[in-house]
């Protein structure tokens, strides 16, 4: 039984489609330089949000130091560029810096995972917060890393956004495949009830450390990307505020939702950059205010009781639209019908060659995903 389930590919479709669109625009010469750099930022923001979602959404631990891991990656990237580029050229340096930056950050993620074995909730959040600040401060005071002046780095061309998006797809791939496996179930079991997970023989120690390490790895990769997009790496960029921004992306996207993290990362980055660049300097102070307003509105949209009728209406509209576009088997008129239609797309859907690698795989055993809870 071969079934292709749209929801397993929707993230790749979104990212791949967006990338294809931008590349097309780029080739037509319609992509401005500022747009390209914005796209790179969006790319690594997606990596950051999706990887933080592993810790916050799947493992259920609050981490306030994600920018710290990115900082590690960025400086490793910067140092490697300075060392390697004279010797072996820019492309090779980039290819070396990406995994090395990731691995070094993963090592720090592992270190942070250690207290996570004993601390929970707020206390762990404080530890991660402290970590982020310590890393930043230590680097700020080391002459080796350029001190307060920052570390000169290699700025790659505008096309860097292609790499950023490709790596975002890799992040989504890892995160999604991890979730839909026995390991992902074990991780979510720890989130839901750690004592019961232990009693079921789930190796909590192992999973906590690994999840922290994987999340930090991708934050490190995002850091290297950042280092490749700027001529000067400065530690002030990785402040506590930035960790919070990443966390906001995850929370706004709905904790545990990869698609949500992706979209809100892209949107928030877009808004932030547009506000910073677009506002005249006298009004620049408004930026945080607008940001806050958007957040408040988004949270209200999701939760406010008086908006419920509107929400339901929109939800129905989307469902109707979906049913029109996507053919589906006749199902009984129960509530499950909409979900079922979403899940079982009987015919092939056109996809980029990039995404079709996994196409003929048997997904029949995946038929047991939980149904979406009705609002």
């Amino acid at each position, binding site marked *: 039984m071969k079934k292709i389930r749209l929801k397993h590919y929707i993230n790749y479709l979104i990212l791949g489609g967006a990338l294809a669109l931008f590349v097309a625009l780029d080739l037509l010469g319609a992509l401005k330089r500022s747009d390209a750099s914005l796209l790179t930022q969006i790319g690594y923001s997606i990596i950051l949000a999706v990887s933080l979602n592993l810790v916050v959404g799947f493992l259920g631990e609050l981490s306030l130091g994600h920018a710290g891991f990115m900082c590690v990656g960025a400086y490793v990237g910067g140092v490697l560029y300075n060392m390697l580029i004279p010797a072996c050229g820019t492309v090779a340096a980039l290819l070396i810096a990406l995994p090395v930056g990731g691995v070094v950050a993963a090592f720090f993620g592992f270190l942070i995972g250690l207290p996570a074995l004993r601390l929970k909730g707020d206390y762990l959040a404080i530890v991660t917060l402290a970590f982020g600040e310590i890393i930043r401060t230590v680097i700020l005071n080391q002459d080796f890393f350029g001190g307060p002046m920052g570390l000169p780095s290699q700025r790659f061309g505008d096309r860097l956004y292609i790499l950023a998006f490709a790596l975002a797809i890799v992040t989504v*791939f*890892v995160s999604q*495949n*991890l979730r839909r*496996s*026995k*390991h*992902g*179930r*074990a991780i*979510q*079991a720890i*989130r*839901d*009830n750690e*004592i*019961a*997970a*232990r*009693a*079921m*023989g*789930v*190796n*909590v*120690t192992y999973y906590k450390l*690994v999840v922290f390490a994987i999340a930090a790895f991708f934050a490190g990769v995002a850091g290297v990307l950042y280092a490749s997009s700027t001529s000067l790496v400065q530690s002030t960029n990785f402040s506590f505020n930035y960790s919070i921004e990443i966390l906001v992306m995850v929370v706004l996207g709905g904790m545990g939702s990869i698609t949500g993290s992706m979209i809100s990362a892209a949107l928030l980055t877009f808004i932030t950059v547009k506000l910073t660049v677009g506002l005249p300097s006298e009004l620049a102070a408004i930026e945080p205010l607008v940001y806050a307003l958007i957040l408040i509105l988004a949270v209200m949209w999701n939760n406010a009781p008086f908006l419920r009728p509107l929400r339901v209406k929109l939800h129905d509209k989307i469902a109707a639209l979906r049913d029109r576009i996507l053919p589906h088997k006749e199902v009984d008129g129960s509530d499950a019908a909409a979900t079922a239609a979403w899940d079982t797309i009987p015919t092939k859907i056109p996809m980029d060659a990039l995404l079709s690698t*996994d196409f003929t*795989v*048997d997904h*029949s*055993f*995946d038929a*047991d*995903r*939980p*149904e979406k*809870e009705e609002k």
Partner: protein
Amino acid sequence: MLTGVYLPTTGRFFLDGEDLTGKSTVEISHRGISRTFQNIRLFSNLSVIDNVLVGMTNRKPCTMLESILRLPRHYRTEKELRTAARELLDVFGLDGERRTLASNLPYGKQRKLEIARALATNPKMLLLDEPAAGMNPHETAELTETIRFVRDHFDMTILLIEHDMSLVSGLCDSATVLNFGTTLAQGKTADVLHDPAVIRAYLGDD
């Protein structure tokens, strides 16, 4: 204590001659003791079948890397585990609800699911901690049937901690009564339940 959540101050306990005192919860689970909880502790945001599948995590070897890269062994493992999980759910009459979230099940079924999840680890010994807590007589009767079925069809020892006498007398071969931490009576269930000392402890003097 038996599952390593608390450390015993004195005494030791063995399973098949192996000293498990002071081992970690995970370790003890690997050695074959599985349990349910007095206050239900399901993985509430996972589906019914995923709850059982978590119990099966250690059944098949399949590394995280294999899962992430979607190597053949991942698919094989998933398929085998899923089949086994559905069989187990079927036994408990939960297969039809395998896609519901565990927290959306009614109370009685949550209890059943907890037992199914405990069995998923393939234990040598199943520990039921007050399974009838918070149940009405009807639900208790149904639960008795479930446990009896497990006793008869699965090859394992069941340790039941319970003060609902109808459940105890209906199921247990032997019973031990504890009163303030000391053994009050031990032996065949019928004998123990008729022991004057036990009756006194339960119902008071006179």
